[in-house]
């Protein structure tokens, strides 16, 4: 039996509260972390780090950011990319203009700037609900992009408005190599997911879900709606901001405001739809899907005899399959890949019994 639960009883609430209650799960997580931190840097190559693993990690984090707001607190947003942009450009400016500021601190401060921006555009959320709220997040999307392009101060007056990342150094250690950038990203993402996990299991997380499921009832039991919603916007903005900074610093090494356009917001939204709304694991699954699926498809198309299907048609096909999958997920598995995984795990817990 894979899962031997015999003898594992929670005798204290603290044990029951654990993120992973079962010993097997904790061991698996530990093994996974060890694998990611120790084995992967040795096994991976440049292509895997630069083109797959780093964007996967960063997009998982962005997914987490939006998931807190949309999946947990139930506030639909199409402004994710704007908050990512604020995080990226703020971090860049903190690094540039405050000499000697440690990288991690500028990253956190960049996140705070994004949080404040998100807070501002979240203000209407008390009065405006549902689709009407989209207009606020879209206003953020367009306004931020415009402001970052317009005021060249944000990009240190570079003529083209493109910022490029300073060397990645942390306490004297250089993280500029692909493996280094991967480890740096992984470290930040693991810490932030730990934080996210604590948040969704805390009082605030429950309040978010309460507001999501029925805000009138939430108000009646004394949950302060405005504070709860605004915190959702701010914390979501914080996570997205750091994701944006990582996108610029550890993934691309450069970024322009246009890199955080509406399509990026959609991409993050698709991650959480496919991965699973209101699931932490879902962010990883969704991001893995979004990163790997197009690459897989274009590689598979490469297998076909040349001339049968050109690169452009593959892209069109990918777009169609993508759209179809989104609809399919919404119809068949609204809780996303995370739910599939959960079912699989439940079966594994009972295996070999079937009931």
């Amino acid at each position: 039996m894979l899962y031997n639960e015999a003898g594992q009883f929670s005798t204290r609430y603290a044990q029951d509260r654990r993120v992973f209650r079962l010993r097997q799960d904790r061991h698996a997580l530990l093994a996974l972390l060890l694998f990611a931190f120790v084995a992967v840097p040795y096994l991976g190559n440049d292509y895997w780090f630069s083109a797959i693993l780093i964007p996967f990690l960063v997009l998982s984090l962005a997914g987490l950011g939006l998931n807190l707001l949309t999946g947990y607190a139930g506030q639909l947003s199409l402004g994710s990319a704007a908050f990512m942009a604020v995080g990226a450009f703020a971090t860049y400016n903190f690094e540039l203009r405050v000499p000697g500021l440690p990288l991690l601190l500028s990253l956190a401060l960049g996140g705070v700037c994004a949080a404040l921006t998100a807070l501002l555009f979240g203000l209407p959320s008390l009065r405006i609900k549902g689709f009407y709220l989209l207009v606020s997040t879209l206003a953020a999307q367009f306004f931020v992009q415009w402001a970052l392009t317009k005021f060249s101060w944000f990009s240190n007056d570079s003529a083209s408005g493109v910022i490029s990342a300073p060397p990645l150094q942390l306490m004297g250690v250089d993280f500029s190599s692909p493996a280094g950038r991967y480890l740096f990203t992984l470290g930040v993402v693991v810490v932030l997911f730990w934080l996210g996990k604590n948040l969704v299991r805390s009082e605030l997380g429950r309040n978010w879900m309460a507001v999501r499921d029925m805000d009138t009832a939430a108000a009646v039991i004394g949950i302060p709606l405005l504070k709860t919603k605004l915190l959702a916007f701010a914390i979501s903005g914080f996570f997205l901001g750091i994701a944006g900074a990582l996108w610029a610093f550890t993934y691309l090494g450069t970024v322009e405001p246009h890199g955080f356009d509406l399509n990026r917001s959609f991409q993050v939204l698709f991650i959480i739809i496919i991965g699973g709304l209101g699931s932490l694991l879902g962010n990883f699954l969704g991001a893995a899907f979004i990163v790997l699926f197009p690459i897989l498809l274009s590689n598979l198309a490469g297998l076909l005899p040349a001339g049968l299907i050109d690169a452009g048609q593959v892209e069109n096909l990918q777009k169609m399959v993508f759209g179809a999958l989104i609809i399919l997920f919404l119809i068949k598995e609204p809780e996303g890949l995370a739910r599939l995984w959960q079912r699989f795990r439940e079966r594994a817990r009972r295996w070999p019994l079937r009931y």
Partner: protein
Amino acid sequence: MFKRSLLSSLALAVSLSATAFIAKADGEQYFPLQSYRVGPYAAGGTGFFGGFIDYLKYVNANGGVNGVKLTWSECETEYVVEKGVECYERLKNGLNGAPAAATNPLSVGIAYATLDRSTADKLPLITINHGRTDSTDGSVFPYAFPLQLNPYSEVSAIINYIGQQSGGLDKLSGKKIVTLYHGSPYGKETNEVLQALADKYGFSLTLLEVPHPGNEQQSQWLNIRRAKPDWVILRGWGVMNPVALKSAQKVGFPADRIIGNIWSNSEEDAAPAGAAAKGFISITTHPSGTTFPVTQGIKKDVIDAGHGDLADPKRFGTVYYNLGVVNGILNVEAVRLAQEKYGHKPLTGEQVRWGFEHLKLDDARLKELGALGLVQPLQLSCSDHEGGGAVRFQQWDGEKWNLISDWVQADRALLRPIIEASAQKYAKEKGITPRDCSQAS
């Protein structure tokens, strides 16, 4: 475990498919193509990469480069930066043993994102007619080549042309010029230089921004109508161009006083505007048309043989297609030149870089290539990665482009200090020690 197994099975599939069907390709020179054939900018991508690929096929049909055959593979970027990066990482190591010569993304965003990587991987990054202006300074950017024309040269040449039309640069004083630019880093890039030129020559300059994507320009053109400028410089991109021409007609501004820049100069930019585009002037680094010996050769050896890359054969000889051909000529010439130094065999990116840096195309060589009049005379060096800086002006007659000027040169001496200052700033930000170009061979 599910996640891991999902990941690993995907990984397996990716690596399997990447390595399957290995065709022996030793002894060939490889061009990784970050192409884009769908999405909003597909028209540019299909034309450019069509011309590029057709030229490579043409070279192969005629024995390759000193016997070395050329090979290539495409990776669709859809003009999206991170897809371009993924393609770069996927293709940079060559194909089945054939080493990569250079990357040609034809996208400012992808070029920026792969700039550092190109330097680290020692793979030339070719940004023909676009890219970072300051990468012209090869001492700071050894692997970046904004061939023929960087953005600053572009506007300088346009101002020089307007000067010519007005009867001399001294007559520019008191003229009124409006620049209508795309609301993006690309669009804004030349604003400072334009301002500097305005200060120098004494014309008045009004900068008007059109928000991306540019499908509404009513207010900008009403402003233009009010300002009554002598000329409008159109720094457009994609849908912004035809809409600009249509909106100009709407407010009664004559099309022959509008000068399109290098990304407003294709058939796809003018034709959708229909009658409104008649008379529209734009710059080009190369004429459109099919009459050059090299394009005739492509027609004979590639297209008529049924191997042409264009889905729509009508686009043969268009601006984007010919740009692809020009780009092919420059890449292949760099390879040929480098072969003279390193031997007639497939070369590494580092070796091809040498070829680019010593690229020299005079009229005699261009004639040999059958590209006289298609490609401008070009000489690159360690400190000058642009090499040309000249454009010709063409006018749309409702059906096609007609050349209306000879080569007009940008004032490169004037621009050089600005470019160097910018490159120095970049070097400082990145901690790069510039090469000493007097020592370079």
